[in-house]
């Protein structure tokens, strides 16, 4: 079943075609990886779908609804959430508050001005539940700004996940951490996402990670899709393998 579909999506920055007429399809329940060299247009595609950017032309359909011109707030309500490549957290708030705020926002409870946030038992329970799933329970009282890089990456995903989206974009969830931590993060993220039956689209550079965790891999190059298939199919594709290894295109 198709969850998200883009039709001839275009976005250009000056001369650079970051998205050159993309028809991107995400099926419900899959764990999809977007790969490609820097500047291939992966983040731009995610930015367009999450309303961080407006497309020049084309259409975005989510659950058969046209969301091309929907505001960020409405897209989040519809069920699209994202994390960020460069960690984006509320550094002055505690780890607990970061997740709790996500839940307050989702429930429309941020209008509550005459009630203490800490006294909302439902939100507390759910926050600790999410923190537990991401292995951050022991850090709940620490300000987010005081976490180690690996934990920050996890919290960034946790904040997006706590919105309970149908479709979750993760922009390089393992960038800037050690190899050992990468596996840890991806194990956690993929198990949480699969357990929560969330559809996930992950931008990732580390091909070991990509091959190990994805159901499907979509490869981009200069604003276009170059390949699309299961990890086995992608491995077997020599042209793609060449690009992944950094060899120039000889087409």
């Amino acid at each position, binding site marked *: 079943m198709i969850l998200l579909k883009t039709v001839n999506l275009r976005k250009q920055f000056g001369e650079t075609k970051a998205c050159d007429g993309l028809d991107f399809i995400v099926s419900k329940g899959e764990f999809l990886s977007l790969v490609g060299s820097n500047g291939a247009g992966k983040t731009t595609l995610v930015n367009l779908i*999450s309303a*961080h950017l407006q497309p020049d032309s084309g259409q975005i359909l989510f659950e058969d609804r046209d969301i091309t011109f929907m505001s*960020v*707030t409405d897209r*989040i*309500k519809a069920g699209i*959430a*994202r994390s*960020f490549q460069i960690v*984006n*957290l*509320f*550094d*002055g*708030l505690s780890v*607990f*508050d*970061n997740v*709790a*705020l*996500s839940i*307050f*926002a*989702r429930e429309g*409870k*941020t*209008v*509550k*001005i*005459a*009630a*203490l*946030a*800490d*006294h*909302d038992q439902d939100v*507390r*329970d759910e926050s*600790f*539940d999410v923190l*537990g799933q991401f292995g951050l*329970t*022991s850090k*709940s*009282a620490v300000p987010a700004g005081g976490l180690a890089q690996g934990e920050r990456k996890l919290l960034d995903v946790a*904040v*997006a996940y706590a*919105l309970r989206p149908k479709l979750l974009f993760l922009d390089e969830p393992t960038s800037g951490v050690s190899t050992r931590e990468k596996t840890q993060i991806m194990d956690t993220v993929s198990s949480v996402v699969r357990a929560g039956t969330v559809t996930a689209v992950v931008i990732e550079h580390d091909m070991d990670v990509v091959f190990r965790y994805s159901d499907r891999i979509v490869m981009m190059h200069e604003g276009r899709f170059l390949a699309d298939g299961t990890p086995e199919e992608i491995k077997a594709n020599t042209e793609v393998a060449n690009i992944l290894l950094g060899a120039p295109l000889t087409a």
Partner: protein
Amino acid sequence: MKAEPAVSHRSALPLAGAALVILLGFALVPLFAGTYQTQLLTYGLIAAIAALGFNLLLGYTGLLSFGHSAYFGMGAYIVAFLAEGYILIGLPVTAILSALFGYICVRHTRIFFGILTLALSQVLWSLAFKFFWVTGGSDGLRIPRPTLLGGLVDFTGPGAFVRFINVYYYYVLAVFAICVVVMWVIVHSPFGKALQAIRDNEVRARFLGLRIRRFRWIAFLISGTFTGLAGILWAPLNGLATPDVLYWTFSGEIVFTALLGGFRNFTGPILGGIVFTYLKTYAVATTEYWQLLLGVVLVLLVLVLPTGIVGALTSLATRFKAREKS
């Protein structure tokens, strides 16, 4: 499954207890201090309310207003215009003004926000200055001693001034206590948390689905209203409303107050308001170069105690605790 949190419910009970003890301490002041000291402390409490409101924007929303004199001054002038019995009638007026100015200002952030607040407050100042047949111009308007609690308490006859100061002190103290509690609840509410999130990271807050501008606007409205309330309370005590309290240097004093106490702490602006009142009063009494003295304090503050008095005390306490542990 309910994983029992590492941090359990932080009980507000000890905090409430401490606040009550401090409040009792304040309540005892007029019994021991003279009329002058009581009057001075009343000014201090009023400055604390103004700074408390101001800091909802600076400390919790991350917006530096350079025009809070507008709301303070509006409060003072409204009392001069209409109040005899009910000075708190002025409250909705300052709220409307804050909503109006806030609506314009929150379209921008950072320096542009600051400049807009400054410009709007200066408009109000020039109106008060030029329309002298309404506002008395630079002479200002005299404010008669009001009756309190809807005429239940009035101040006439012999010894009226002393009686007024003593009663008015308790009146202001009560309003102050209510303001502190209300503001404390606001900054600890889901709404308050959202403000802090917007302060820390606007982009991420937007990607939680928060409507940023609306939050800033409501924060502005509350902030201005608190400061306006301070102006309302100030007017009868001062007995005169002049354009000085609308002028931008007065906005600067409010900023100074928050910096002095520490804008990163809830109690910072409260302490800042009281300390600043004494500082200014004694500086003026000591030297005709009092502005120079305050300027030096401000420079030292920014260089040596950037987190203000409360911030410095807190980090001292943390260091002390850490040393005890090791």
